[in-house]
């Protein structure tokens, strides 16, 4: 997928002027955040927090031992009959999948959700080689039909209204018009069921790989993950190298904390452990391939951003983020959005290609607080701002602004003057004064805050003079 993260600011402005989009995203993220709280902390704050730390440690231990666990996982999967392949980058992923497709004479493929496949634009490569590929997660199917990209890693069409989806189905699939979400879903079920039964190859992602058992672990609510991994002759899973975990006990924690953080479910409807292709006397795919994908991850591993690799892609930080809530996911310009997107997009695609993203945060800290594996996203956003600055990617006007503020904040005299000026300005300026650029970037869409007639420092000085004591 092309990286358009440099256009975050204009793209966000478009999103901000679309009230329907903002309402849809707000409703969806508020609902998910509320459900998360209810399932994460139903047994009390202390239990939920202990669980988070348990999950956080499981992921960090896995990253600590990553190369050894990858070798262990590869050996276990191979012993189970899974064919393990390694891909350094997007080119190699596409080549490997095309090779597999050619070897097994694949004409039609069905896919369950895989964010890595979005990273490497797999669908285009397959279609260019005359292989039909159909997304089967209902949201991803809608995204594919409309020629868009997902706007949320868990709920990809969070930005689309029911009416838009209705019109899309009527136009593209000849659906009899209906406004009933259930009827629309049933229509899609029929359409996709035929595709499942005809497909030669199923493509999936992977939520975890358990190193000690070689299990490929998947979660889906709709059942498309089971279809894709059960019905076609060939199953190919694309899994990031960071997804390996050590033990089945770690799996028990992580696969249960994932839906609690993500959609607020206690369990995802279909939680799968796949150990191998079918045996002679059972149903299932004849061939299972797991492609372990690097695509930039090993560059992050030795850095202070290694923590970002602990992410289990639950989407809780998106649902908590005031910036995501205001802009939706498309403004972020690549596969991943929200706070985790603002961190990994620059790391995976290059700082210079995503320079606005680390600034797309108020640093309120909620993303860290809701993260099921306690990733310190605000710390990394700040560090990325430093890296951007050192690499010369900070716009000059921001630098002057920050320098000016630093000068004022360091001097008690200047700070006092500034506070008094703000108080005076608040009294005499209109709520949206016609300030010159770049200051109008703030006042165009916001009222000036109302300042108290006297600053704290003035009040304090008067109080001291009057001989009062703080008791």
């Amino acid at each position, binding site marked *: 997928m092309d990286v358009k993260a440099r256009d975050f600011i204009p793209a966000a402005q478009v999103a901000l002027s679309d009230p329907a989009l903002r309402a849809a995203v707000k409703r969806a993220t508020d609902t998910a955040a509320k459900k998360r709280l209810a399932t994460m902390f139903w*047994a009390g704050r202390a239990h939920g927090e202990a*669980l988070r730390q*348990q999950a956080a440690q499981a992921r*960090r*231990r896995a990253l*600590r031992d*990553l*190369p050894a666990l*990858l070798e262990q996982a590869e050996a276990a999967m191979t012993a*189970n009959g899974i064919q393990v392949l*390694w*891909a*350094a980058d997007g080119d*190699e992923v596409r080549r490997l999948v095309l090779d597999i497709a050619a070897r097994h004479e694949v004409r039609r493929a069905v896919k369950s959700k895989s964010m890595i496949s979005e990273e490497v634009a797999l669908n285009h490569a397959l279609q260019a080689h005359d292989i039909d590929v159909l997304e*089967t997660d*209902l*949201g991803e199917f809608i995204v594919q039909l409309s020629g868009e990209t997902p706007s949320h890693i868990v709920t990809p*069409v969070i930005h689309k209204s*029911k009416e838009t989806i209705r019109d899309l189905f009527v136009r593209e699939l000849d659906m009899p018009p209906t406004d009933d*979400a259930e009827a629309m*879903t049933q229509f899609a*079920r029929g359409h996709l069921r035929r595709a499942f039964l005809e497909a030669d190859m199923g493509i999936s992602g992977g939520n975890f790989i358990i190193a000690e*058992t070689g299990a490929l672990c998947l979660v889906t*609510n*709709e*059942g*498309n993950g*089971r*279809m894709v991994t*059960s019905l076609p002759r060939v199953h190919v899973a694309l899994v990031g*190298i960071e997804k390996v975990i*050590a033990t*089945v006990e*770690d799996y*028990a*924690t992580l*696969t*249960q*904390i994932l839906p609690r953080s993500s959609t607020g479910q*206690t*369990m*995802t*409807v*279909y*939680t*799968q*452990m*796949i*150990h*191998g292709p079918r*045996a002679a*006397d*059972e*149903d*299932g795919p004849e061939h299972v391939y797991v492609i*372990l994908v*690097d695509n930039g991850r090993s560059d992050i*591993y*030795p850095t202070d951003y*290694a923590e970002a690799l602990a992410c289990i892609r639950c989407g809780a930080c998106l649902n908590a983020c005031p910036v995501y809530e205001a802009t939706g996911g498309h403004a972020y310009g690549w596969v991943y959005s929200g706070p985790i997107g603002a961190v990994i997009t620059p790391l995976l695609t290059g700082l210079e290609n995503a320079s606005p993203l680390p600034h797309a945060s108020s640093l309120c800290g909620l993303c860290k607080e809701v993260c099921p594996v306690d990733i310190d996203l605000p710390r990394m956003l700040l560090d990325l701002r430093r890296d951007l600055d050192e690499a010369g990617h900070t716009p000059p006007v921001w630098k002057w602004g920050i320098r000016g503020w630093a000068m004022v904040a360091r001097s008690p005299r200047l700070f006092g003057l500034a506070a008094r000026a703000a108080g005076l300005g608040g009294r005499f300026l209109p709520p949206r004064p016609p300030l010159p650029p770049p200051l109008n970037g703030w006042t165009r869409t916001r009222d000036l805050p109302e300042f108290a007639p006297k600053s704290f420092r003035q009040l304090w000085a008067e109080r001291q003079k009057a001989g009062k004591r703080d008791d």
Partner: protein
Amino acid sequence: MTSRETILSKLHAARQPFAGLPPAGDMIPVVPAEDTGPAALRARFIAAAEALSCTVTACPDADAAIRHILGLVGTDSTILSWDLKHVPLPGLGAALAGAGIAIAAAGDASVRAGLTGVDAALAATGSLLLASGPGKPRGASLLPEVHIAVVAAGQIVPDLETWLAAQRAAGLEHLRQLNSVVMISGPSRTADIAMETVMGVHGPGALQIVLVGES
């Protein structure tokens, strides 16, 4: 160098992150353990499964369970099914034959109802755990509109942690031979269209749990 070697050598050469972590200690279960006596487990399983929109029908004995299943199948002439030796209901085969209900070939997607047993049921989350294997086709719990799952009360365990601990005790080699293990927690569902929950997207839209026996 192959990509495998490139990636692994890069990771091996890197400064190890999180080097100071403590070793894995005792872990707390995701759902705190309460009373794990048979009656309490049964009650928790029923409550959790019903909260997931499953229909749970408790039957005191096999005969009652078979009568209930025949009612669910109704006038259908075929069902998808596990080999009945994996369904803990003696007499079910004869009853189905007597009612003129045939078992369709695994993979027949035109059949309305699918019948399975389970390998375990998880009380904490109301989940059914099904492993694939000979006579236990995956399609029976996936392709039809209605999934009928027969659970013997003795198959209920507290949670996923307990089931995995039993697998470890028995040797993880056995677990690895189960090519597909799935935990099913309620009917297939989506909320992709305007956040409205809809059942039965790709998998069954109804999950009928037939719970047999008192404990």
